């Protein structure tokens, strides 16, 4: 049985104040410099809420997810998950959070079942528990039983992403961080993943932070939508309010109005960073 850290009833699921992350970059043109991947981001996410963050590549979405999942240390500001500071109480945070990212990320020679057993042990689940839970969860995400013992490398990306969802569900996270979970999936797999996200929220009362490129996905799944551009959170409100604020007919138009660029105009990551040169 997974032992979760106690959750204070009044705590927000996510609370970030002036959260900042910088990386050192070296190149011939500028030499050594610090660039801000996340520039003083503040946001609050209530328990049970689903919030989507829209942004292009290099906008800081993954940095935000990594900071909240204790994989990066901030350079300024603070962040907490259910009241636990992500730096000082990192172990408590880890018990409450799990993540699904764009890369399914598994041991390719191991089977889905073996990968899930491995992941579950880190959360204190015994073989007798995983022996029951893993087949149940794989069935819930629609993974075919006859493929559970095949190496991951033989599975399609859609199948691998289902196993990634099962890995997240296995640890019963109260905060689920989704970093472009449907990117590169075929339409059917994409719909299945989106249905699963709805189920996680409805059945398990999970709070969801969804970072995505997909405007339709953000609008249909999230109660509030944020626009993250070049490390800055420009807005965070319900999609309808966002459209109204920028006088836009669609979320894409709102994104364009907020950032000055179209959503599909992929900007080179370095160019984006160069604008944020700090030193």
């Amino acid at each position, binding site marked *: 049985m997974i032992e979760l850290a106690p959750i204070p009833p009044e705590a927000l699921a996510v609370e970030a104040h002036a959260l900042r992350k910088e990386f050192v970059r070296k190149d011939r043109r500028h030499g050594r410099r610090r660039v801000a991947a996340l520039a003083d981001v503040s946001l609050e996410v209530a328990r049970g809420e689903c919030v989507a963050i829209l942004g292009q590549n290099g906008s800081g979405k993954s940095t935000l997810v990594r900071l909240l999942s204790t994989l990066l240390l901030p350079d300024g500001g603070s962040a907490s998950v259910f009241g636990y500071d992500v730096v000082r109480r990192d172990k408590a945070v880890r018990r409450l959070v799990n993540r699904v990212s764009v890369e399914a990320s598994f041991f*390719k020679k191991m089977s889905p079942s073996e990968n899930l057993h491995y992941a579950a042990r880190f959360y204190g689940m015994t073989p007798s528990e995983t022996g029951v839970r893993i087949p149940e969860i794989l069935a819930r995400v629609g993974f075919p039983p006859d493929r559970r013992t095949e190496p991951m490398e033989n599975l399609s990306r859609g199948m691998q992403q289902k196993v990634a969802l099962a890995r997240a569900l296995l640890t019963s996270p109260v905060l689920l961080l989704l970093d472009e979970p449907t990117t590169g999936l075929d339409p059917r797999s994409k719909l299945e993943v989106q249905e699963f996200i709805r189920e996680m929220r409805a059945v398990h009362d999970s709070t969801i932070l969804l970072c995505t490129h997909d405007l339709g996905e953000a609008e249909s799944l999230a109660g509030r939508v944020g626009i993250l551009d070049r490390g800055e959170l420009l807005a965070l409100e319900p999609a309808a309010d966002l459209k109204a604020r920028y006088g836009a007919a669609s979320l894409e138009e709102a994104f364009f109005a907020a950032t000055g660029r179209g959503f599909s105009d992929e900007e080179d990551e370095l160019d984006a960073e160069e604008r944020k040169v700090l030193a």
Partner: protein
Amino acid sequence: MRAAALSLRHELIGLAGVVERNVYLTRRYIYWDLAFFVWTVANTLTIVFIAKGIEAGGGQIDVERATTTLLIGAVVWAYLGIIFEFLTETVAWERWEGTIEYTFMAPLSRAMHLGGSGVFAVLYGLVRAILLFIVVAAFFGLAFDEANFAAALVILVVASVSFFGIGMMTAVLPLISPEKGAQLGFVAQGMLLVVSGVYYPVDVLPDWMQWLAKISPATYALDGIRAAILDGASLGSLWHDIWPLLVIGAASIPLGLGIFNRGEIYAKRHGKLKRSG
């Protein structure tokens, strides 16, 4: 009290999970392991044949004793290589597969995470070292009438604690340099053995290297194992090798863990945990 017991149980399950994963992976790569074992045997033979070569060149040596001395050096070298390889791969392999972020965001202490790799490395390394010893000894037809194999095994297991501690220090290298860090583990292995009398007595080394030999656990491991196998020394008479191993082991584990934790903080500050490759 109950919370502490629960937490310990959780940690031990995590440790067992790392061992379990390494069992899965070893099973998947078993034919590669067999191929690597053949290479290790060939490599060991090239070293052990040196004793016969000296005799053929007119040198006056006890060939059987020299052959066994070299064999023990080669087996300890191979064993240490396995320990360091598994510990370095704790990070390197996970980074290559892309699972590293999932592992590092899991609520398991780094001591237990690395401990799982260490436990498996010792078990796997012992099996490989024993097989290597048997195969090469059989090849040369070596007789071990007086050997105390039990004492030799105890020395190797005690030395493994220190090897594990030093291995944790090398395991941090792929965190700091994702591209080249894993290869630096071999440098540490070579440095450790060159000062420890792996194929020669420590006395032949320059003074400053002999000083380094005093703080190397491999020195005491090689000395104790050779005494047990060549002269049948009992555990009691090997105490002068055992206590330094215990002291170095007690110091190297917290030191190794401390260095790894510093490396992890560095990696989290500079974004080095990200998947690459």
